[in-house]
């Protein structure tokens, strides 16, 4: 009998987060009849603060046949370091990457990183299961749709795109299958994939193009498992827009409210704030929501138009007021360096957010992420950015390098001035 294929699954998360992606990938692969009893999994859910050599030590100790890594922009550099070290120590290991940082630029990743054997493009569950089946049978990974691997000469070879999974419920729940143990404060639930907006700087929709939802029964079961059975008191939703539709918000509130009444709280969920009125704010409160994260990202007309982002200052302000009326902390986000924004536009955005007196103002510089329209159109938009992850903006046509850094430093100070105050005493 052939020895099972040993698969190490790695994610380097921001501290305080756990990888839902690894949970999905493993749960899906474990349920695949081709792999049952033939593949053994080990998950290393670590953080970007972990030293690359120590992470490599952990991986190498597992002696995997396949190392699979979920890669986001913030952990990409460390991921490449780990992969390089692991490949030197274990030349026969086959390294497969996936995730939003690498999927949209799969061929470029393979060209730049000889230690990587394949990159899964886009939605990963089905493609990854195919890759493991091919690995088990000693076949080239390029036979899996949705995967870019290497040909005999080592050059990138892209298999055809893979259609999206039509029925998301065919992906076993990582929580309900016991693959992913929810951690207090860092667990996430996903109720749908995609995003109704098409903001040019954002890849939360991951290019899926349309909204696909998990079944209500499954979502309810996950909530019951986390909040009921596991007794998790605080988790969040990974959905790009929590208040996707009024009906959905009402349904989710109905599911969450009994747990919220017993102490469940939800933090930093993302909302479309311009669609929040007093009733929606009250629903969010009943659902246990204590804080939300929202835009406006910019108030500059040119940047908003270039990024195809809608913004109505009055409706936005009304949404903030409604949430504050329910005691929900609102985190308003602004991005410095969007195409078309001047320094004054950005500072105007800071002033606008301050005028609303939200719970928190969060500013950051633009990251030109693979897969986004800004990444594709950077040259024509005059965007200069670091080609290495996390792809931070260097200069725009309207703001030079030094002024971008100044805006970043100044806005952090202003946010601090805003946050330092007596609250609830």
């Amino acid at each position, binding site marked *: 009998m052939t020895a099972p294929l040993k698969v190490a699954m790695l994610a380097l998360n921001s501290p305080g987060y756990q990888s839902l992606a690894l949970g999905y990938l493993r749960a899906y692969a474990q349920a695949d009849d081709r792999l049952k009893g033939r593949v053994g999994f080990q998950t290393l859910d670590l953080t970007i603060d972990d030293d690359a050599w120590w992470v490599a030590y952990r991986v190498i100790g597992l002696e995997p046949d396949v190392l699979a890594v979920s890669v986001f922009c913030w952990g990409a550099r460390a991921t490449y370091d780990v992969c390089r070290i692991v490949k030197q120590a274990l030349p026969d290991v086959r390294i497969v990457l996936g995730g939003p940082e690498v999927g949209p630029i799969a061929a470029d990743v393979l060209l730049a990183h000889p230690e990587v054997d394949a990159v899964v493009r886009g939605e990963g569950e089905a493609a990854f299961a195919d890759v493991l089946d091919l690995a088990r049978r000693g076949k080239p990974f390029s036979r899996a749709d949705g995967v870019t691997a290497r040909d005999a000469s080592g050059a990138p070879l892209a298999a055809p795109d893979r259609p999206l999974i039509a029925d998301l419920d065919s992906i076993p729940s990582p929580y309900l299958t016991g693959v992913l143990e929810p951690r207090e404060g860092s667990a996430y639930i996903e109720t749908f994939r995609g995003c109704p907006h098409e903001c040019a700087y954002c890849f939360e929709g991951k290019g899926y193009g349309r909204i696909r939802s998990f079944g209500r029964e499954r979502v309810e079961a996950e909530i019951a498992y986390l909040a009921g059975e596991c007794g998790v008191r605080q988790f969040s939703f990974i959905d790009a827009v929590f208040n996707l539709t009024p009906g959905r918000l009402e349904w989710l509130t109905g599911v969450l409210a009994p747990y919220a009444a017993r102490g469940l709280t939800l933090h930093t969920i993302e909302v479309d704030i311009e669609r929040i009125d007093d009733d929606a704010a009250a629903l969010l409160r009943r659902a246990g929501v204590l804080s939300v994260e929202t835009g406006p990202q910019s108030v500059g007309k040119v940047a908003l138009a270039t990024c195809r982002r809608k913004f109505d200052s009055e409706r936005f302000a009304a949404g903030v007021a409604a949430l504050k009326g329910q005691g929900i902390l609102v985190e308003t986000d602004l991005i410095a360096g969007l195409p078309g924004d001047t*320094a004054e536009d950005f500072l105007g955005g*800071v*002033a606008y957010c*301050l005028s609303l007196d939200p719970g928190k103002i969060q500013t950051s510089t633009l990251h030109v992420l693979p897969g986004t329209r800004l990444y594709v159109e950077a040259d024509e938009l005059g965007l200069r950015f670091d080609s290495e992850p996390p792809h931070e903006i260097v200069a725009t046509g309207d703001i030079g390098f*030094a*002024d971008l*850094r*100044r*805006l970043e*430093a*100044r806005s*952090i*100070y*202003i946010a*601090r*001035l*805003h*946050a*330092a*105050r*007596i*609250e609830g*005493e």
Partner: protein
Amino acid sequence: MIQCVPIVVGTGAAVGCTRCAPMPEAKYLSVAEIAVSLKGACGADGVVLTGPEPFSHPELPAVIAACREAGFTRIALETDGGALAVHGNASGVLRAGVRHLWVRVLGADDIVHDERVARPGRGAAARAGVAAYSAAAREDGRTVCVTAIVPVCRHTLPELPAIVVSCAVRGFDAVRLVSTGPLPEVAGVLIAAACDTGMVNRIWVCTDGLLPLLSSHYLHGVADGTADSAADGGEVQ
């Protein structure tokens, strides 16, 4: 942006360079007199208790309480910082409601600072005081903002970049350079150097509207947190 209105707690001045001018004698206002000023500041984002050293006010707790009663949630103290090192003061003002410190810094190290304020030991005391305040905030889980106020005179001017570095090392959130009077022609270049030093040491440096600033550095020319961020009035005397 955010405006903290100055509320003087007496006649006199915050600690400055004694080589430029001797410190005037301090005389403190009553809580009732300060409360009148607080009424006038109604609607502002916050207030800063300034003028002579607020920790020497005989009724500082009552003054802070008056700020809170007037509805202010952002209360700042402009101080030499030394009194914060006295046991209980740092946590005391924090818990009383002070969330902002404006700490006067006149030298890149303790010896120079002490020499300029003509009071031995004040630099070390200020360092210890700011550290105690920040530690108390961390312990209580409260967000505070600590800004270094650097009076720019012909004595501090050449040393500004080094002062900025020392403030970065000490954990200040920002450095504000404030005008004290006429400066030599090279001032604009040295002030720009101080701003650039802040950028590479990850600390924001801003200037009041009266200091000369190179046009390339115009974004540093707004003193956030002050009552008139577009054209700060310089030193409160």
